[in-house]
């Protein structure tokens, strides 16, 4: 059965959803939410669910998301402790990705200017299960994201553009894995290095563009692997079929907003167990 490189999928984007917000005094600082990714760069990205059934009757799907809990502390509640569980399953792409992880994260927001320019420090300890390689790993990460220039905002309109750079240092210890069928090498050991990424977003009326590019440079690799720069790029263009709301009243009157997104992903990310692949998706989205 041939697997198509380019697929058309119909999916639903589940916008950031507040699952619960406890009011009890001992739990006032606690929130539980559904988000796309386990990191804190953009907690309001939607979780994704996509499905494809090809002519041969084979079903493939993709789903990516995270379940998080937040506990705020520190001066001005600027720090957040975040236990989380995340998953990424994608059999639509040329090479499947199927992993889940759980861990503890810590974020501290350092507001630099009154206009909200901020340096956000984040660190995490997590356990990762890569189903495609039948491997388990422990991961330690520490990084920082800059929320400031370059950015542009049109006053009185939803239009804006911004780029957020992030640098992350990591070490990933793979402690169990299946031996490679051709080389016989068991890919266990420690991979460490640095990741530099740029996340860009822009909104112009009904149109929105999002792009992410990252380069992972390992300084140490697991047995059987070679050192080279791993690159992962994701870009999407979305068109919503209704104008964005300009007032609270319009927003409340707006129900589910249909749209269409074209998404392209190329590359790999061994830190997050995203296998090398490229795919393009045309996705129908519903936001609410």
């Amino acid at each position, binding site marked *: 059965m041939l697997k198509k490189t380019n697929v058309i999928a119909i999916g639903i984007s589940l916008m950031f959803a507040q699952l619960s917000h406890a009011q009890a005094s001992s739990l006032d600082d606690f929130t539980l939410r559904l988000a796309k990714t386990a990191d804190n760069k953009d907690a*309001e990205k939607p979780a994704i669910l996509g499905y494809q059934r090809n002519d041969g009757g084979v079903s493939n799907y993709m789903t990516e998301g995270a379940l998080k809990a937040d506990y705020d502390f520190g001066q001005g509640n600027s720090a957040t402790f975040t236990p989380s569980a995340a998953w990424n399953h994608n059999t639509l792409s040329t090479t499947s990705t199927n992993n889940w992880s759980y861990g503890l994260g810590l974020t501290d*927001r350092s507001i630099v200017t009154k206009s909200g320019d901020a340096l956000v420090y984040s660190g995490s300890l997590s356990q990762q299960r890569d189903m495609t390689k039948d491997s388990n790993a422990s991961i330690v990460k520490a990084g920082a994201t800059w929320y400031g220039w370059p950015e542009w905002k049109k*006053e009185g309109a939803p239009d804006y553009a911004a780029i957020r750079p992030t640098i992350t240092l990591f070490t990933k210890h793979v402690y169990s894995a299946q031996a490679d069928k051709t080389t016989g090498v068991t890919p266990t050991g420690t991979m460490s290095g640095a990741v530099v990424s740029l996340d860009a*977003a822009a909104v112009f009326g009904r149109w929105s563009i999002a792009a992410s590019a990252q380069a992972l440079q390992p300084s140490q690799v697991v047995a059987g692997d070679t050192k080279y720069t791993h690159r992962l790029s994701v870009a999407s263009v979305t068109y919503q079929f209704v104008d964005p709301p*300009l007032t*609270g009243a319009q927003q409340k009157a707006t129900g589910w907003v249909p749209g269409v997104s074209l998404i392209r992903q190329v590359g790999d990310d061994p830190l997050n167990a995203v296998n090398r692949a490229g795919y393009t998706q045309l996705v129908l989205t519903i936001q609410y």
Partner: protein
Amino acid sequence: MAVKKTNVSPKSAAVIHLFEGDSADDCVAIRKDVDAVLAGMSNNAISATTSNDALVSLYIIPDKIQFLYVLLNQALSRYSTFKEFQSGDIKATATVGDIRDAAYSHCNVKCSHT
């Protein structure tokens, strides 16, 4: 409500507020502090006269709205009854009025008009 210190300027009277009741002065002071934070975050695009129904995302880049609560905690900490905001309290879909109302609520002050 006890205020640890005050720097409310007589110029605040230049903006018409229609607060009523015993807490009217506190409401004016809180409103002024909140509007100052919103003005700073929006490069002065939000002012004291900005409508409560205006979406904050029309003036502040959505992914920076997540930092508003830290600045509000700093600005409102001088009020003795203030209870700090949490990181998830202010959504990117909030209106200017939502934030003003939340500030009164977190200061435990009832304001008759926002």
